[in-house]
């Protein structure tokens, strides 16, 4: 585990200011002021419906907030969409894995590589128009080489989750947001998976933000924890401190 690298100008990698989302009488996000420093490994915990995924959706441009702003390395990205934010170096994986159902595992990664390149050949076959070394490396990283040429629909849930993360990593982002990356992975393997992922992210200097329900995983791999309750961040700090917070213990951990 490496210490967070100090940012050059003191500017957080991602920052929100008064970020609010209200609809139909529900406040999914309540004036959130939040900052993520480069090099951090942030774990986000909270009960279902607390607002964790909604917050991710807003920060990645999928939903427009009712009020407030989002900044990426100092740049206002509030009105940008997922495509532009992805191009600015943010990769994301989803609660329900978002894969390309008609394609193979390898092709999904190749498409990710095309996304990174920003250009797509009309003539060269997909496999030959991307850097296969990067694809192979990624396959090895998430241990999906054996399934490389299978349709994604044939994969078990845990593998689909990993592939989802892998696709995001093909973008070579500086921030990767992972929504429950180990859900669906057998509990014996969760640590192995997180270990591999985190090591890879450290090697590439990628800041990570992941939603996680398993407290052991959080304690072992996160440098910081934010606990969400009813659209607000109720506690934010070192894992030991957040888990010791009585409100968190009652509202979040108690509900397990």
């Amino acid at each position, binding site marked *: 585990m490496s210490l967070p690298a100090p940012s050059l100008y003191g500017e957080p990698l991602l920052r929100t200011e008064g970020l609010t989302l209200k609809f139909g009488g529900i406040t999914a996000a309540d004036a959130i002021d939040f900052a993520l420093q480069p090099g951090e490994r942030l774990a986000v915990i909270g009960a279902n419906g607390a607002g964790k995924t909604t917050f991710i959706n807003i920060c990645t441009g999928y939903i427009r907030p009712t009020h407030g702003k989002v900044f990426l390395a100092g740049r206002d990205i509030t009105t940008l969409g997922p495509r532009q934010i992805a191009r600015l170096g943010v990769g994301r994986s989803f609660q329900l894995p978002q894969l*390309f159902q008609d394609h193979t595992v390898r092709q999904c990664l190749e498409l990710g590589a095309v996304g990174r390149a920003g250009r797509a050949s009309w003539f060269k076959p997909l496999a030959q128009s*991307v850097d296969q070394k990067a694809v192979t490396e990624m396959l090895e990283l998430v241990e999906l080489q054996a399934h490389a040429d299978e349709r994604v629909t044939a994969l078990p849930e845990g593998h689909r989750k990993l592939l989802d993360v892998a696709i995001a990593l093909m973008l070579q982002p500086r921030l990767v947001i992972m929504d429950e990356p180990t859900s669906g992975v057998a509990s014996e393997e969760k640590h192995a998976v997180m270990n591999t992922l985190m090591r890879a992210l450290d090697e590439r200097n990628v800041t990570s933000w992941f939603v996680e329900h398993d407290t052991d995983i959080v304690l072992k791999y996160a440098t910081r924890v934010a606990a969400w309750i009813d659209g607000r961040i109720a506690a934010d700090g070192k894992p030991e401190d957040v888990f010791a917070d009585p409100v968190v213990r009652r509202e979040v951990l108690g509900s397990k």
Partner: protein
Amino acid sequence: MRHLSVFRLVVAATFLLVAVALAVPWARVPAISFLCFGLAALGLTVLMRAGQVSFGHAMYAAIGGYTVAFLARRFPGADALLLALAGVLASAVCGAVVSVFLSRYRGIFFGMLNLGISMVLVSLIGKLYTHTGGTDGLRFERPTMLGMTLSRGDFEIAMLVLVVVLALAALWLVQRYFDSAAGQLLAAIKTNETRLEYIGVSARRVLVQGYVVSAALVGLSGVLLALVQGLVTPEAGHWLRSGEYVFIAILGGSATAVGAFLGAAVFEIIKLTAAAYFTNAWQSLLGATLIAVLFFAPDGLMAARRARRKDVSS
């Protein structure tokens, strides 16, 4: 390898077609018609790759055909190849313009908006008869081909060769496009557009590209048919014609480029059978066949064929 067996099939079919057409004069125009329908269906197949169906694409055949007719009448010395190029360009440009608006839509909206725009165009063509010849259409003189003035028979042979060459070229290029990175992005629109956006790809831009290709292909078919007949009518853009193109594309299956021509062949056979035995019921026959295909083999004939071959080999 899949492509190899298809390649052999295509080569054999081409030889057969050309041989028959050269030997039997009255088979030439039907052969050209079959290939043109195949080209148009190929255009629709491109869009179906992205999971979209357009119910108005015949308008590009009309645009291509009328461009050829206008230019042939205005510049009587123009060569057929130049006219063809102009027609295809016109269709592609119109496709580009339309797709800027339409690329925001998917599914039913996409299909029906295309239909609406095509009906507007066709009705305008019908009403502005001083320019377009109205419902009778526009006739034009047989143009030169590569600088040579040809008799009717020779012109038909030359057109046949041209159409065969262009169909084969289109088949090859479109299949390459499908296999390419851009073509795979197009296919990804069908399955997960959100993910595409999240990897930094503009689904709209990819769809626009596919749309322009499809408009150009349908335009090409309209251009070639107009050249061979020396005539273009509003029927070339009629929604029924669009429906036929959709039908052929579905029949052949949208997974491969060659499916469009397979579908066109089956369609041509149905049409000839219907004309011979059920002259007043050919639309219903087509409709009934479409329902049967949609029920039993919605991925088309090519997929059914591949499924059978997979069963055999495994």
